[in-house]
């Protein structure tokens, strides 16, 4: 209600009369300036959901044969919810609604509202009663949750919406289709488990991210104090922090924010670039094509290499220091991250996948956690069984990922025999058909890769990065059966010569 009230009076609010209390972003515990919430809806809703006015929310019974509530949102601007009215339940006839094909129902609803209320709606949001119950349960104690707990709960809510088929939007925006297809393709794998898995891999960090735009600059503060569930998120504008952005340089702005928010690092991005990347991602069709994933990687790498063109960072990473790079070059290694080959790397990965695994293949990915198992010899009979964590069977058909199937531990291991990747391959092949390869990767290695090559790629720590690279040669941490040619090459070469071989492909010689 606060937000609706704010939105409807936005034109009469000025700087001094703005809401002094913060408002929560709907369905989140994030309290922030009302102006930010207004901006987010004004800016993002038309891009990602619907760029026309007026929305009709319908609550229906779980079996879909009765309308329980009709709510009409009047939006003078697309996405900016200002007021609502509750309409009579029997205004629209829901008989014979086909929830998988709502075109006819939408046309009927639109014409009824035009006739009775002289209002043209642009979209429908339909909630089954169960969805409302889920939302209500979700909102209990929401304000007191920390960001980590909120994310887990929110992902669970979204997953339920799509798995139980209890929430619909018409016309379907790309983000809706993408999230729905993603969840359904995961075949029961929980999003919040995936989030937990990746979150625990991250070491402590404290970053601020400036999202620049002509309309409103947003500042995010994300902090993880220690390992575990201690993740915080805050949202500000420069005005909230007492920073005047008129005529200020990017570097100065970033330094001021670094001081104000006591951040270790400050990143500066353009909102439009991120929106463009997200829009591309949400347009992806399922089953996912490896070709499309290749383009996303290209875009991400292109963005990464455009340091100090499209994005900035404070403190400036030492790896970009010209003298340092020159000295490394003297040792025969070209490590210019501004020339990372954004097109050759995805091309190489994609053609390696195609040739090594084939255009059709089933590949078993096993995740282990060696750190939890300290006793016993690595080659012991039950070693793999004890360090096993999760397994996924990924099925590819003509370069599309058509199935991701979680595999039960009982399907993998045979009692009383030595369980290794070979025996696992035969076991799974019996049940699911010929498995091209079994890839085993340990959490420890994933930790290292994420921390050394993702979150700290720009950090100048060559020895530590080489150490992480060397971990791929440790069969307890990473192993592929059978040994595909690319893997055989990696195992057969020394780190120095392998690095030289690969860097020549990964780093461009010239600007293209």
């Amino acid at each position: 209600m606060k937000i609706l009230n704010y939105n409807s009076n936005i034109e009469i609010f000025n700087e001094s009369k703005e809401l002094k209390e913060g408002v929560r972003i709907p369905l989140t515990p994030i309290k922030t300036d009302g102006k930010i919430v207004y901006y987010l809806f004004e800016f993002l809703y038309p891009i990602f959901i619907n760029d026309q006015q007026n929305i009709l929310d319908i609550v229906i019974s779980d079996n879909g044969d009765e309308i329980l509530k009709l709510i009409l949102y009047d939006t003078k601007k697309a996405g900016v919810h200002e007021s609502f009215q509750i309409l009579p339940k029997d205004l629209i006839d829901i008989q014979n609604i086909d929830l998988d094909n709502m075109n006819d129902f939408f046309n009927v609803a639109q014409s009824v509202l035009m006739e009775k209320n002289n209002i043209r709606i642009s979209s429908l949001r339909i909630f089954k009663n169960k969805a409302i119950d889920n939302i209500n349960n979700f909102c209990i104690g929401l304000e007191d949750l920390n960001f980590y707990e909120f994310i887990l709960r929110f992902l669970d809510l979204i997953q339920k919406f799509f798995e139980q088929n209890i929430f619909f939007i018409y016309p379907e925006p790309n983000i809706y289709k993408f999230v729905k297809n993603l969840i359904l393709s995961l075949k029961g794998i929980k999003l919040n488990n995936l989030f937990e898995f990746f979150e625990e891999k991250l070491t402590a960090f404290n970053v601020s991210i400036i999202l620049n735009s002509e309309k409103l600059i947003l500042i995010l503060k994300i902090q993880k104090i220690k390992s575990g569930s201690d993740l915080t998120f805050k949202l500000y504008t420069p005005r909230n922090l007492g920073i005047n952005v008129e005529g200020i340089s990017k570097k100065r702005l970033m330094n001021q924010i670094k001081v104000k928010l006591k951040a270790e690092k400050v990143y500066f991005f353009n909102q439009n670039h991120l929106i463009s990347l997200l829009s591309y991602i949400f347009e992806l069709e399922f089953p996912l094509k490896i070709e499309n994933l290749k383009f996303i990687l290209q875009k991400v790498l292109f963005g990464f290499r455009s340091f100090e063109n499209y994005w900035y960072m404070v403190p400036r990473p030492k790896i970009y220091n010209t003298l340092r790079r020159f000295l490394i070059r003297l040792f025969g290694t070209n490590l210019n991250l501004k020339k990372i080959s954004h097109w050759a790397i995805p091309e190489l990965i994609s053609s390696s996948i195609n040739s090594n695994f084939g255009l059709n293949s089933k590949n078993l990915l096993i995740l282990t956690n060696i750190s939890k198992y300290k006793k016993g010899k690595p080659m012991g009979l039950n070693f793999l069984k004890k360090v096993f964590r999760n397994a996924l069977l990924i099925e590819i058909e003509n370069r599309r990922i058509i199935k991701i199937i979680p595999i039960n531990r009982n399907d993998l291991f045979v009692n009383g025999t030595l369980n290794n990747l070979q025996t696992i391959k035969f076991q799974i092949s019996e049940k699911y058909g010929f498995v091209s390869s079994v890839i085993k990767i340990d959490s420890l290695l994933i930790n290292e890769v994420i921390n050394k090559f993702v979150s700290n790629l720009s950090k100048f720590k060559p020895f530590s990065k080489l150490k992480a690279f060397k971990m791929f040669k440790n069969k307890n941490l990473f192993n592929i059966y059978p040994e595909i040619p690319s893997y055989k090459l990696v195992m057969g070469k020394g780190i120095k010569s392998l690095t030289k071989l690969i860097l020549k492909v990964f780093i461009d010689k010239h600007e293209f």
Partner: protein
Amino acid sequence: MDLLNSETAEVAIVKGETPKECVLNGIDQLGGISRYIDNGDQVFIKFNLRLPYGFPTNTNFDVLETIIQSCNKAGAKKVYVGSFPFKGVTIKAISDRLGLKRYFESIGGELAFLDNSNYFNMKKFDSEKLKVIKNRSFSKINVNNQTFIVPKVILDSNKLISVNQVNVDPLFKRRLSLLNSYSIVPNRYQEILRKGKDLLLNGQYKQDLISNIIDVFSIKKPNLVINDLFYILENAGPFIYKDSNLTKTGIMVLGNDAVAVDAVTSKIMNLNIKKNDLILKAEEKGLGLADLSKIKIIGENFENIDLIIGECTNKLDEIKLQNFSIKTGYLCSGCFKQAYHLLNLMKTNMTKDLKYITPNNSFLIGDDPPDPNNISKDNIILFGDCAINSTRKREFKIIVKESKKKRKYKVNKKVLKLSGCPPDIFKCIKLLINYYGKKDLPMLNLYSETVASYTPEKITKKLRIWEVL
């Protein structure tokens, strides 16, 4: 009933939801596996085993598994599977990279190391011992005044089954079962003996190749033939290239007569059987039936099937390579085929390199090819003995340096000769890397190192020795 002597060629066209279901459907339609496999039979399954890469470079292993298990159920005493792979690659290398030996053992079959490469890594295995093993494992067969050596394990098997993954092919349009049979003999015996310009006359290379294929096929005809079209590699093949696409048809064609199976397969793929010299020659030699009116076709109605498959290009200059211009003279099928594979390999594995190398590169192939675009500036690659020999006296071979006093003639070092009739692709890759330099071809260098991981020099040497023995 002895199916080999039966005059009735029976072919089943079947559809299925999965390849396994499809092949079982097909065998059922033909009367069950017991029609082909008797109790106590030793069976050899000839499948496509080319390179240590994923599907569809090789046969679909789910289909193979189904057939092996069916044979075992029918009471086969032993089921061998095998094939000779791509030239320069050993069966052991492929088996190790794909885990085939143990896999086939686990499903009731045995991988036959037809090239004896399972011995190559053993210590104290010199050429004498290899010779003894080779003599023990092969028989010499004389066909049309040509001697072939054929593994005894194939000749001694009571039944031969051919399982063929149908992909597009630059020479024959489709790789069908007749072509699959060719690799029951070592690569050395698959080479065309005639060399040189004679091959240019009237498509002599292809004619010689067809004759060879028919001769090898006639050594032992398969009892059961399966053309697996369930998934077909189209546009570029039969290996996975950048332009390749996998299309799903859901269809298989099975039968007791390889020629008939290939004829029916060609028909449903919209290929003109009358233009397929391989099938026609096989029929002419009495090795099978290609006349559809004489073939008993069961299962799906082939009139209702009309598969449109993207063909391989039949012009080398249609393979677009950045910074390369391809100039073709009069060339034989041998050089065409090898150049096709080399250019596609370059297109697939040199995406970055093609931007690095200088913009002026000419690829000359065939007898009397056109001159490069810019004689003085271009890097010139001469592919094949015909191109090398026919351009001996061409202007681009010599660089003329004029000074005030005199003219100096120097050999143009920008000319790279890829010799051979036709040239060997792996050798060509090494020569290209030497020519341009590893620095300028990082992706091709990486690819070459990957290939070297399964064709190490030590093993390649042993293979060459074995082939010559």
